């Protein structure tokens, strides 16, 4: 009896610990984001108040109004940055997906000499730190004259996203049995038709999630963008965040508002792809 009681006690204790731990961890994960959202609605005085104001007394849309209005101290051309980010991210994602699909398919379907080395080499090209890469790119782009252009940024982001897109798409295509394409060929398809009518639709969800991952990488990238963009011509939102800083001050409220604008698409997209993303990462990685 006593033994059963200890066991029951221990189980309850574990359960309580489990719950507390989970709660703490989730708070740490979620709070910084929520804090930003909250601050974007609070007047600057309240954010900066000392002693701190824990319970917001006033919530308004001032920062958003200032941001979009391009007036007052928040006169940052947010809409232009948003547009730049969108054009650059979407275009580079589409191209990276096409290139990545070709490459991923090659890795998933063909055997060739030096395949493993080739794969690691591709990945290693992604490992080159952005800041180290930005130095020579800065020089080259300056010579060619594509600094501060959409084209220049798209090119960089395609290159940056291709390796990882290949990794993911390789994983997704490997989950599509080879026999499907063979069956389609016997049913009268050319290789090309077999790919587009059978293999592609079956792997579609996975490819979409690879695309979203690439999109977010471009959307969030800073190290390269900060050097290769100059003006409203091509500045993206991460670079635009710096417009809220000056030598000694920071417009926290305005920055939070822009941050929210950056986070929202990211969150929505994450929510959409999370399942496939994990499947793609692990399948490609585990079933070498």
């Amino acid at each position, binding site marked *: 009896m006593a033994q059963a009681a200890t066991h029951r006690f221990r189980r309850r204790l574990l359960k309580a610990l489990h719950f507390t731990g989970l709660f703490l961890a989730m708070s740490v994960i979620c709070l910084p984001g929520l804090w930003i959202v909250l601050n974007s609605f609070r007047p600057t005085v309240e954010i900066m108040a000392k002693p701190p104001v824990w319970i917001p007394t006033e919530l308004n849309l001032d920062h958003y109004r200032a941001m979009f209005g391009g007036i007052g101290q928040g006169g940052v051309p947010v809409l232009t940055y948003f547009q730049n980010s969108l054009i650059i991210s979407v275009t580079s994602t589409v191209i990276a997906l096409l290139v990545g699909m*070709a*490459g991923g398919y090659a890795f998933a379907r063909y055997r*060739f000499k030096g395949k493993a080395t080739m794969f690691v080499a591709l990945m290693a090209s992604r490992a080159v730190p952005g*800041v180290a*890469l930005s130095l020579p790119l800065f020089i080259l782009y300056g010579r060619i004259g594509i600094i501060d252009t959409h084209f220049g940024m798209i090119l960089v982001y395609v290159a940056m996203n291709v390796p990882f897109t290949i990794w993911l798409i390789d994983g997704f295509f490997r989950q599509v049995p080879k026999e499907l394409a063979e069956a389609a060929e016997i049913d009268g398809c050319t290789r090309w038709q077999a790919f587009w009518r059978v293999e592609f639709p079956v792997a579609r969800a996975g490819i979409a999630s690879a695309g979203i991952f690439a999109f977010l990488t471009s959307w969030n990238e800073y190290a390269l963008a900060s050097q290769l963009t100059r003006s409203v011509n091509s500045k993206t939102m991460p670079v635009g965040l710096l417009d809220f800083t000056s030598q000694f001050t920071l417009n926290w409220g305005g920055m939070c508002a822009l941050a929210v604008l*950056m986070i929202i698409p990211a969150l929505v997209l994450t929510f959409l792809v999370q399942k496939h993303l994990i499947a793609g990462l692990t399948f490609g*990685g585990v079933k070498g």
Partner: protein
Amino acid sequence: MTRAKLPPWLVLLMPAVIILAAVVLIPLLLSLYSSFTAYQLTRPETLYRWIGTFNYVKAASDPNFWWAFGRTVLLLTIALNTEMLLGLGLALMVSKVTRGQRALRTAMMFPMMFSPILVGFQFKFIFNDNVGLVNNALQSLGLTDVAIPWLVDGQLALFAIICAEIWTSTSVFAILILAGLFSIPQDPLEAAKVDGCTAWQSFRFVTLPFLMPFIYIAMAIRSLDVARAYDIVQIMTNGGPARRTELLWTLIGRTGYVDARMGYANAMGYISIFLAIGFTVYFFRKLTAARVSLGMGD
């Protein structure tokens, strides 16, 4: 109508190879060349002044460089290990939840999707000594009444940076380890139970070996973009105070863009590239080995 012409895999890989060659390989060759010159951004003619390994020798004899190098390795070691342990813990906790697990999993991914620069600002704000969340909370709870200079003191600043880094990247580990936990076959676990293993023993001898490939995948993914810590550090401290949080990447950025000494910056850049690639190759090797040992290979 033969089925074999140019090997199709080569044709398929061509676009990727061309793009990477153009945007990564050629610039890197240029930077390799310029690392042997006295190139200064402001004086283009210096690009042709060959000075041999001078820049490398200079870097190797510069204590600032070695401090940054050591600090980078230290930061990565601490951060990656902590991330792995926390990720493992988080994954284990989430895997035991039955209701609302999907929501938890999604929430877990959010930090991954934050722009690193945003994370930098966020944590700069949180650790602000005057109005930051951490100090406000500590003071409101009455734990301290002084403003702790989180980003001003060198040690504390490094700690704050590591916190930010861990916050963004723990989820990579948690998510992949969680995926690993779900893919573990139940039979060996049940067999271990019947064989009289304690919970710890079955974790240690059954679960963990199965998780290793997943941990290595996470490590490999992380190794691909460890340098994104650059964005965070740049915003939070920009290497300061007094170079106490200078990392290899911030040092390179400053030398190249602020001091305009491109040749020297490229030389240090090369060292950081080899560090990153070495890292990547190491973890891919580990991943392959773990896979083979579990019989998951080809």
